């Protein structure tokens, strides 16, 4: 518990604290900097996708990691963000050709980039409230199953709401607004939100009910309410990430928002460590780099002395094996519950093992 008991020297001098916070941010901003000055087109793409994935994983971690409750349906919010923002921001003239059956009140709307993604995010937040009220009371695998059902329901709706989504046909014509700076600005916002929530009394309540539900209930922590805010927040951020992705890839279909994507995000989350913000970043970077490399190798290559044929599916297999390995050998992921301690870099006088809560 903070402030109670004897603890030598807890507050580092001001400049050290600033440095400890600035270092990870600086490291993070290396990515968009490199993307703008000097990266090849391929590297630019990887950096953008990396940023969006970090945001997705962090948003999921915000809920899963801190409440201990597993939502398997988050990609549904991603879909709402992507489709919602695309429809809102598409020029009216294009809407007439691409989405001719859109209802009149929507067909005439054309919003800018930021208003579109914010509106889509809000839509997701509202849906999260509606879904959360019944579902967040459940626990363990019941809530996992219920959120999985939500994922399936979203998919069915997407496939059938043809006037809005073109059904399972390709949705095209999304305005290409996403840039690497937009993505990393949002990544920073997400990190900030996650950090603040974790450190607030609200965050403490979340962790309390995660560690010991019975005790938390006994003390009077309202379980539903403590779960609702992170759920809604994470839904909002996931939707924004989805919107950023939609405005980047420009064409997509409901397939992109189903089990494959869900499992990819969960792998990054688990490998990095649930409950750790830096863990999410590290896990995502690792998995994305691994996937990109493997995908290139999948096409088959010529080593000069031997011709390796295409082995489609290999990258997926290796990812799944990595996932199972983490669960077997290091279940808490790379960083578990802890954060990378940047303070260590700057504190010369190290005595007690600085345990994070």
């Amino acid at each position, binding site marked *: 518990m903070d402030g109670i008991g004897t603890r030598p020297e807890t507050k580092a001098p001001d400049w050290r604290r600033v440095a400890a916070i600035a270092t990870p941010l600086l490291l993070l901003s290396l990515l968009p900097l490199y993307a703008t000055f000097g990266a090849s087109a391929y590297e630019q793409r990887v950096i953008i996708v990396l940023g969006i994935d970090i945001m997705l994983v962090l948003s999921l971690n915000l809920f899963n990691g801190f409440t201990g409750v*597993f939502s398997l349906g988050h990609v549904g919010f991603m879909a709402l963000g992507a489709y919602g923002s695309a429809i809102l921001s598409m020029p009216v003239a294009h809407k007439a050709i691409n989405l001719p059956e859109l209802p009149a009140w929507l067909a005439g709307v054309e919003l800018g980039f930021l208003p579109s993604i914010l509106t889509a995010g809000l839509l997701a937040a509202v849906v999260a409230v509606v879904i959360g009220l*019944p*579902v967040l*009371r*459940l*626990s*363990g*695998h*019941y809530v*996992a*199953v*219920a959120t999985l*059902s*939500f994922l*399936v*329901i979203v998919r*069915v*709706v997407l*496939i*059938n709401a043809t006037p809005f989504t073109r059904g399972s046909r390709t949705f095209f014509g999304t305005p290409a607004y996403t840039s690497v700076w937009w993505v990393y600005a949002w990544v920073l916002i997400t990190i900030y939100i996650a950090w603040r929530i974790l450190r607030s009394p609200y965050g403490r309540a979340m962790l309390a009910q995660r560690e010991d*539900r*019975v005790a938390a*209930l006994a003390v009077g922590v309202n379980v539903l309410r403590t779960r609702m805010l992170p759920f809604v927040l994470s839904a909002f951020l996931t939707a924004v990430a989805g919107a950023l992705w939609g405005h980047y890839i420009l064409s997509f279909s409901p397939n992109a928002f189903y*089990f494959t994507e869900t*499992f990819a995000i*969960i792998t990054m989350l*688990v490998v990095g460590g649930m409950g750790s913000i830096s863990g999410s970043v590290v896990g995502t970077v690792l998995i994305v780099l691994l996937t990109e490399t493997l995908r290139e190798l999948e096409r088959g290559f010529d080593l000069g002395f031997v011709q390796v044929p295409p*082995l*489609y*599916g*290999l990258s*997926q*297999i290796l*990812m*799944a*094996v990595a*996932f*199972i390995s983490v*669960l*077997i050998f290091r*279940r808490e992921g790379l960083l578990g519950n802890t954060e990378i301690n940047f303070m260590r870099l700057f504190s010369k006088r190290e005595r007690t093992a600085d345990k994070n809560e």
Partner: protein
Amino acid sequence: MSFLEYMLQQTINALSIGSLYALMAIGLAMVFGILRLINFAHGDMMMVASYSALALLLAGLPYWVVVPIVVLITAFAGILMERFAYRPIRGAPDVAMLLTSFAVTIILENSVVMMIGARSRPFPVPEFLRAVYHYGNVTVASVNVVAIIATAILLVLLTLFVTRTDIGISMRAAADDMTAAQLMGIPINRVIAAAFAIGSGLAAVAGLLWTAKVGKVDPYMGFFPVLKAFVAAVIGGFGTIPGAVLGGFVLGSLEISLQGLLPGQWSSYRDALVFGILIVVLLVRPNGILGARAREEI
């Protein structure tokens, strides 16, 4: 077609698809009952069975020989799956096990993609399963009749198994209370392996029937059936065999009636409704129709 004939036709459709769901759901229920594991890779047992059958049929073996061999192969595959993917994480929180089953699904499906190819392959369905009988306006495909009869026989056999044989009784004991069962000296590893073997064997039968209806196989064919089987198992009473069977037929009937009742525009929202009903069931009666009333889960 008269109303009576229409109802008869739909009843047969419901029973036959319900049988397939029931066969699949039993495998899920058995494993969940003992291990609290939701095994999504169960659907891939269907796929393994169908591909094995394809290979054997193309090699020239007659169907009658192929079926029991395939059931054995799939049962063995189930045992292997348990041994290498699930035993190492036994005791992990429920959600970790569920996620692992996703990983296993991905590994199995992509292995087939990698080694055999992602394209659908036509499946040589034997004559006796292609026959169609007409009674007035009612059409009965022989594959549906076979499905219903096979399910009935297998259920009888299974009931005898869990009530009369040692392993069967041990399975029920382990499902009831794993720790007590272990204390009683029940060889838990063998019991679990048996549960996987039987569940996979049943999935093999369901897979062969399904393939006979569809006429082709592809690496992802098991994905959708397992999702449906899962809904069936939960609605009927998750963890119990009678619950799984009941759930299978309830789901089959629900699907066919929704398909018929919903006006044309909305009939494709059928699946959304089914999963919505699933959420309601989880809220109101999480252990399903036949399950015990759930204690307040904390």
